[in-house]
């Protein structure tokens, strides 16, 4: 199975990249944008097993290495390969 991990800056922190992209989009004429946030996307291919145990593993990966809990939040999705 494949885990998809999305990591973004916590709300409230200045996301300088997101802000720049939003400005660029608006200058291209895209209006009514509330916010643009930029983050990281990580794919992890792993052995097929129960989603629950996989989720626990990926949660731990995020807490231990993939995200910095001081400034980042993460979101995990799973899909079958």
């Amino acid at each position: 199975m494949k885990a998809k991990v999305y990591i973004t800056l916590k709300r409230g922190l200045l996301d300088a990249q997101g802000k720049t992209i939003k400005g660029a989009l608006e200058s291209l004429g895209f209006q009514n944008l509330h916010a643009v946030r930029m983050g990281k996307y990580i794919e992890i291919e792993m052995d097929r097993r129960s989603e629950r145990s996989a989720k626990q593993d990926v949660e731990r990966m995020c807490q231990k290495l993939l995200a910095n809990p001081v400034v980042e939040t993460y979101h995990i999705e799973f899909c079958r390969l």
Partner: protein
Amino acid sequence: MKFGVVVFPGSNCDQDCVYVLKDVLHRPVITLWHEQTTLQGCDAVVLPGGFSYGDYLRTGAIARFSPIMRAVRAFAQDGGLVIGICNGFQILLESGLLPGAMLRNTALRFICRFVTLRVERTDSPFTNRFQEGQVIRLPIAHNEGRYSIDAKALQTNRGQVLFRYCDADGNLFDAANLNGSMDCIAGIMNKAGNVLGMMPHPERASEAILGSTDGRLVFESMIEAFSHV
């Protein structure tokens, strides 16, 4: 007093630190390879600048798991002097040895230039050779040096700040704070006062020929502090 300079794959200021400590300050120095598990009797540890592991996930995030870091953590908890410069600062943050985290510079680009800093405290093992409020010149060279900390933690750690970005007269304001750090923080130590992280490079400003000798005082302060232990 024996210094140990840690070398991670991707460190690139390790030899600059060794040069200053050995050839400018004439102190014994060894390098500590990241796979080693002991500090080999070092009295102070330097985590140098660079791009450990390419900084590919997050700056300092992978170096933190190096075997040597276990020894550094134990050494720090035991009161040993640890200084992290630039990438070394980022590693200390990721390791939880210092509060806060590092984000990309607000200008979203690498900045390399001399900056002016205000020395906020002189009663620390890293700043005892400075004057309080002294304005010093050190170079910065980083892409991710925007120090960030949540408001509550900032409140409790405010007294630990040793260096702030300022203008030539020592005033703090946005234009002097090139990377957008919270509260203009350029260098901060832990509560116990034995671990310092700073983004500017003191080792690049330790000889007159390089345009400033202010950085040398950071190392000399450490030597001074150690002589009183």
